């Protein structure tokens, strides 16, 4: 009996002493699960799958993608926030999940700042201010003048209430002290279709998604929300150039782990992910989708996400667009 207790105690001590350091050294000892809180085929899914596929070689373990869609990524993010911070459960999601949900919803079951350790901001793409063909507005200045002359007449199509392009429109109205009618759609595709068909007037859409329609004259592009002009459209000004200071907006995708992940593991994951993102093949593939690779480090990523949440919280508050529960 005594022997047994001693043995058990010894085992417990040995196990307890070993558990911490061994875990980080041996990591990864088993396959890692990457939760994508959106359906297969979307931007987060593609970014997650392509990046982890490229990362796998030097990593030593396979990374399995699991889709847990729903509520703009809230279901998947909440499940990752509750997972053990051991580096075996990660998440790849969007500006909506990490940056806008916390600004929009008070009943959210996760807070990216408190429950998640960001690993890296993977990619980003600016929004483009586009109008339907034949609206008769050639510059942002003319658009602002028209909005001031006839307030609340032009319709602004967005990919949904609380989407990044909706909040960009809201920010545009607040900055230029104008207003329009917000017309939400279920996703960017239908919004773009109605813009081309002339059923809606204006929209902020991801540059990569509409570049081709603009080239073919199905939409007109007035400006982009990037920090510099796009090499594909050197004649289109940035909002910053036009004097709209706070209107540098990107739609981004990022990787994160549960809060409290051991620093060595977090560093290893971040290194693997950024190396994969910076590899020419991956950069080129994302370039085709209209995304530019960011691949910053965990500290920068944490700061960036916190700043985004603050920024969008202010836009939501000033625009009074919080859904009443």
């Amino acid at each position, binding site marked *: 009996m005594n022997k047994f207790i001693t043995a058990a105690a010894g085992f417990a001590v040995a196990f307890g002493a070993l558990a911490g350091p061994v875990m980080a050294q041996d990591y990864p000892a088993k396959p890692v699960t990457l939760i994508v809180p959106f359906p297969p085929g979307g931007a987060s899914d593609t970014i997650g799958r392509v990046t982890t596929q490229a990362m796998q070689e030097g990593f030593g373990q396979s990374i399995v993608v699991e889709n847990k869609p*729903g509520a703009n990524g*809230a279901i998947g993010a*909440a499940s990752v926030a509750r997972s053990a911070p051991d580096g075996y459960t990660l998440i790849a999601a969007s500006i909506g999940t990490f940056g806008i949900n916390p600004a929009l919803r008070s009943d959210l079951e996760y807070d990216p700042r408190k429950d998640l350790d960001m690993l890296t901001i993977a990619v980003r793409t600016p929004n483009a201010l586009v109008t339907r063909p034949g609206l008769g507005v050639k510059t942002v200045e003319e658009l602002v003048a028209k909005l001031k002359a006839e307030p609340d007449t032009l*319709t602004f199509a967005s990919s949904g*209430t609380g989407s990044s392009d909706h909040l960009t429109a809201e920010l545009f109205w607040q900055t230029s002290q104008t207003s329009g009618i917000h017309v939400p759609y279920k996703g960017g595709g239908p919004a773009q279709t*109605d813009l081309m*068909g002339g059923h809606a007037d204006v929209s902020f859409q991801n540059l990569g998604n509409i570049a081709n329609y603009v080239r073919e004259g199905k939409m007109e592009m007035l400006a982009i929300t990037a920090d510099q002009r796009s090499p594909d459209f050197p004649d289109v000004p940035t909002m910053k150039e036009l004097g709209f200071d706070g209107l540098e907006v990107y739609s981004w995708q990022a990787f994160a782990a549960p809060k409290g992940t051991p620093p060595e593991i977090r560093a290893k994951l971040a290194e693997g992910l950024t190396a994969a993102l910076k590899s020419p093949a991956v950069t080129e593939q994302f370039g085709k989708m209209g995304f530019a690779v960011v691949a910053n480090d965990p500290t920068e990523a944490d700061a960036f996400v916190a700043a985004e949440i603050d920024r969008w919280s202010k836009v939501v508050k000033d625009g009074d667009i919080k*859904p009443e529960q």
Partner: protein
Amino acid sequence: MELIQNLGLGFATAFSVANLAYCLIGVFLGTAIGVLPGLGPVATIAMLLPVTFGLSPETALIMLAGIFYGAQYGGSTTAILVNLPGESSSVVTAIDGYQMARQGHAGKALATAAIGSFIAGTVATVVIALIAPALAEVALAFGPREYFSLMVLGLVASVVLASGSLLHAVGMIVLGLLLGLIGTDVNSGVMRYTFGRDEMADGISFVVVAMGMFGIGEILSNLESEASRSILARKVEGLMPTRADLRRIMAPVARGTGIGSLLGILPGGGAMLASFAAYALEKKVSRTPERFGHGAIEGVAGPESANNAAAQTSFIPMLTLGIPSNPTMALMIGAMIMQGIQPGPGVISDQPALFWGLIVSMWIGNVMLLVLNLPLIGLWVRMIGIPYHFLYPCIIFFCVIGVFSINNATFDIWLMALFGVAGYILRKLDCEPAPLLLGFVLGPMLEEHLRRAMLISKGDPTGFLTSPISATLLALAVALLISILLPAIRSKREEAFQEED
């Protein structure tokens, strides 16, 4: 002449060994996932997307397209044999197809579906080749007003799905509309009827409702009468349609193909709307509408042709404008972008081999499907002969896997069980699940387009009547409503008079 040249290029592309092989893989996989309830083409294509990176663009798209229309074929098999519509477009096939199977004509129903689909697929392929570029502009002319009126017409027409009481059918449609309201409101972002659960924030999945109401509900009521069911199953006969059958299905197939080719071009629920518009039309023109719902072969031929034609023509807006008309097409656009091809009007001129090769491969794929499926009918039919107490655990097993695979959520399985019990109770009350499913699918679209149209018109409703397309659709809806109500009122009065006598 140019068309023949183009088709020649298409045949040359599609008949390369690699493309033929991948086309076969595509349609085979598609049939398999179509037969398994719940596993849809969207999830399959998404999982296979990374595999296609290594292939040439033509080969990749040919395989992915094969999965999509192969699934339409396979989906009707499950709908007919076990009354389980895995895709919204096979809901109406289940109505008469399953009744035919119960009467021992499962083989005939399956063959009708296969032949109808083949003819529709062939015609739709020609339609795409002939008028794709011109037709694509039609889709752009449809704005929120036009869609709203189309949905109104759809809802009015869905009443004809009832084979029993009109009142019950209307009740079920309204119940479906209410269920469709669950989820996040598109306009305000408010969550409605979700009980604060994030699992319901995006609404209830169609597959959950369909599997619960049709699958589980059907099993529950079958278990009650297993003895009578096994007797039905034993007299399976007449695998192939007779010459007389073929003559009877020709007109419905032609009408279904026409409706399907037209509605497939419109974004949003094209194949589903097409299949049940075809059903409504067949019931309307039939001299014996009372046979519908009790195993009318026309009720299988029309909708099956329509949904296959629509599946093919839904490629038109995707290939010519880069507009996805359904989630599968959105994935195809993703596949093109990853191959370095920008979807849009430029595809036909910049990538003629891709465009015409894909079109020809669709026709080849349809031939392959017919060859694959006709010999298999005997095998499928024997499935019905399996004693029910062996069959139903398998059906439940596949339902559970299928429902779980949509969101990887156990919550959906519980929800399906709940709908199963509801389906059983409604069946006992002589309420059919098909109108409920249509209300469930159409309701949210109706609301979305109505509110969007009103937002854009700043609250002015006259736009519905001043747009010619919208006005025509609404006029059709009114005419249809009158034609449904008049006989109903008349027969009620006749009944009343008879009672007085």
